[in-house]
C-alpha cells in the first residue's frame, strides 16, 4: 500500500521526536549521575537521521559517530537496549561494554558508532565493498561531522569509494563546530560538499534541519547509488542544540565559543518545531494528535529507563570475556 506524504511526515515526526526525547532524557539522567562516562547528544540534528534512515532497509549498512544515538534509533535501534547500554547494564546492546559511544547491531546493519572522529569513513567504505560484492542492491551510509572531513580518513576513503565505484553515501552533518572550533577556521572551502569534486564524487549541500529536504534528497541519491551510480557526498547544514558533550561549558554556563546570536538563529530553525508547523498549517493536523504522539514516546522512554534501571550489572567475569571471537 502506498504510503501517503502525510503518513511519511508523521513517521518522520515520531522518529525525530523520539530521538529528541531520548536525548533530553539522557541529559537529565546524566545530570542525575544515573548515566556516567561521556555522552554527546544529537538534539537539533534529528531531521538528518530521520530523513536518511527513513529510506534504508536492514540490509543497508550505516556507520555512526560519537554523537550517534539518533542514527541508531532511526536505523531501528531498540530504546530499551540503547538506554540499558547507556546505563552500562548487561542487557544493553553491548552488554555494558560499549556505552554511549559504542553501540552496534549488525542485524540492523549498524556497524557501530565510534569514539574516534573520522574513523567511520574507511569502515563504511569497506561495508560498501561488501554490499557491492553481495550484489543485493544494499548501500552503506557513513554519518560524519564537518570536522571529521579534515581527517585523512575522509580523503583516502572517498577517493577509494570513487575509484571502486562503491555504493556509499557519505552524509555530513555540518553543525559548524568541531568541539569549539568553527568550521570556517578549520577549512578554507565554504562547504564540505565542495570537497566531493576533488574525488570525482557527486555532492550537494542541503538544509539539514528540514526533514522533507533531507528525505527528498536521499530518495534521488539512493536510487542512483543503488543503480550503480557510485558514491555520493551529502552535506546537511544543521546545529547541535547542546554542547559538544554533556558538561560542555559553552552550553552549561556561557557562550564560550558559539555566539548567542547564532544559537538563537538556529534554535528558531528547530527541525521538529518546523515539521510540527508544517503538519499543523499545511496538513491541518490537530495539536492534540501531535501531543498524543509525544505522550506515547514518553511512555516508551519511561519503559526504556525503567528497563535499564532494573537490569543487572554485568557479572565481573564478563571483563575477561570476548576479547577474541
Amino acid at each position, binding site marked *: 500500500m502506498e504510503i501517503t506524504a502525510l503518513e511519511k511526515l508523521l513517521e518522520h515526526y515520531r522518529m525525530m521526536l523520539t530521538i529528541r526525547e531520548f536525548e533530553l532524557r539522557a541529559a537529565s539522567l546524566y545530570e542525575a549521575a544515573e548515566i556516567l562516562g561521556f555522552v554527546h547528544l544529537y538534539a537539533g540534528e534529528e531531521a538528518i537521521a530521520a530523513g536518511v534512515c527513513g529510506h534504508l532497509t536492514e540490509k543497508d549498512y550505516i556507520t555512526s559517530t560519537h554523537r550517534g544515538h539518533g542514527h541508531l534509533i532511526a536505523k531501528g535501534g531498540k530504546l530499551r537496549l540503547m538506554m540499558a547500554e547507556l546505563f552500562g547494564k548487561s542487557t544493553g546492546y553491548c552488554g555494558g561494554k560499549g556505552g554511549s559511544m559504542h553501540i552496534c547491531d549488525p542485524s540492523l546493519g549498524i556497524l557501530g558508532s565510534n*569514539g*574516534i572522529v573520522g574513523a567511520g569513513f574507511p569502515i563504511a567504505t569497506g561495508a560498501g565493498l561488501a554490499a557491492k560484492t553481495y550484489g543485493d542492491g544494499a548501500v552503506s551510509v557513513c554519518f560524519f561531522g564537518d570536522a571529521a572531513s579534515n581527517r585523512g580518513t575522509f580523503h583516502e576513503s572517498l577517493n*577509494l569509494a570513487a575509484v571502486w565505484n562503491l555504493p556509499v553515501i557519505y552524509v555530513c552533518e555540518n553543525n559548524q563546530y568541531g568541539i569549539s572550533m568553527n568550521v570556517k577556521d578549520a577549512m578554507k572551502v565554504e562547504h564540505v560538499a565542495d570537497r566531493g569534486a576533488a574525488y570525482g564524487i557527486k555532492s550537494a549541500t542541503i538544509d539539514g534541519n528540514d526533514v522533507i529536504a533531507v528525505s527528498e534528497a536521499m530518495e534521488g541519491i539512493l536510487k542512483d547509488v543503488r543503480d550503480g551510480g557510485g558514491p555520493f557526498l551529502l552535506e546537511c547544514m544543521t546545529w547541535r542544540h547542546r554542547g559538544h558533550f554533556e558538561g560542555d561549558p559553552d552550553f552549561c554556563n556561557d557562550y564560550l565559543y558559539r555566539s548567542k546570536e547564532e544559537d538563537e538563529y538556529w534554535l528558531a530553525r528547530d527541525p521538529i518545531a518546523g515539521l510540527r508547523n508544517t503538519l499543523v498549517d499545511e496538513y491541518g493536523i490537530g495539536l492534540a494528535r501531535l501531543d498524543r504522539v509525544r505522550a506515547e514516546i514518553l511512555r516508551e522512554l519511561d519503559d526504556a529507563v525503567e528497563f535499564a534501571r532494573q537490569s543487572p550489572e554485568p557479572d565481573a567475569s564478563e571483563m575477561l570475556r570476548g576479547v577474541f*571471537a
Partner: protein
Amino acid sequence: MAVTTYLNALNDAMRIELERDPLFYIAGEDVGRFGGPHLVTHGLWKEFGGERIRDMPISETAILGHAVGAAAAGLHPCVEIMYVDFMAVCMDELVNQAAKMHYMFGGKVSVPMVVRTLGGAGMQASAQHSQSWESLFTHVPGLKVVSPSTPMDAKGLFLSSVRDPNPVVFLEHKMLYGFSGECPDGDFTVPIGKADVVKEGTDITIICWSYMRYVGIQAGKLLQEKGVSAEVIDLRSLSPVDWETVLASVRKTGRALIVHEEVKTSGFGGEISARIMEGAFDSLKSPVVRVAAPDTPVPFNGNLEAEFLPNEKIVTDKAVQMF
C-alpha cells in the same frame, strides 16, 4: 614432501584460499598486476581477476580501514601493508577499530581479517623499510600476531590466519622470501599459538622467531661444539604465545636466552623474560638474557646494518657466559 620457497608457499596458500572461499580477497598496493611488491601475490591477479586481487591506491589508512568494514560486513579480506614501518600510518584502524570491535560491541561483531606486512633488516632498505615491530601489536588486546619463519609455517599459519574470526597481524620477513624448505602440498594449517621446538636440548633454551630462528639454530650448533646442548624454540605465534612449551623448556634447561630483531627496549623479549620469571623462576640457574637489536633506527650502511643485527656469534658468546 615437496620443497618450496617461503614466497611460493605463501602464494600457494593464497591460491588455496581464493579457490576455497568466495568471500576471501586480497587487497593492497601493487598486489595485482605487479604481482606484489615482493612478488608474494604473483600470478594471482591473472588467475582470479581484479575483484579478488585488488590493487589499491597508496592509502594505507583506507587499505587497512576498508578491510575492517568489509570484514565486519562479512567478507574475509587479506590486506597487505608493504612494510611494517607503514603500519604507523594506519594504526587507528587496527588498534582502535579492528582490535576493539568484538569486545566493545559485546561480541556482536567479529572482524575476520588478515593484515600481512613485513619487517626485518638485511638488505640496506634503511630506517623506514627495515624495522621489526612485533611488540607494537602484541601490546594490543584483540589482535593475534604470527611471525612464521619457514615455508611450511608460512603456508600453514596463513591458512589458519585467514580462517580465524579475529584480526590477525601476519608478520613476514623480507630476508626469508627466498628461503627453501619442505612444505606439504594442498590444504593444511599450522595452529596459531603453538611454538615449534626446532631442536631439543638440555642446558639452555634459545627462544626466537622469524629470521632469528636461523640465528638460533646456528648458535645451537656452535654451542654444541662447545659441549652445550641448546633447545631452540621458534615461537611462530606471538599472540597468543605458547607459554606452556616455553616454560616447560626453561624448567628443563634452567636457562633462557631470547633473541629478537626488534630493538631491545620494550621489545617482546622483555615480556618473555618476565613470564619466565613469573612461571619458572625456581628453575633458573642464571638470569634470563636478551639478545636484541640496539635502541637505534636501522642504519643504511651495510657494515652498520650488520652490526645492528643480532647474530649467532653474539648469541653463542652470551649463552656461554650464562654457565
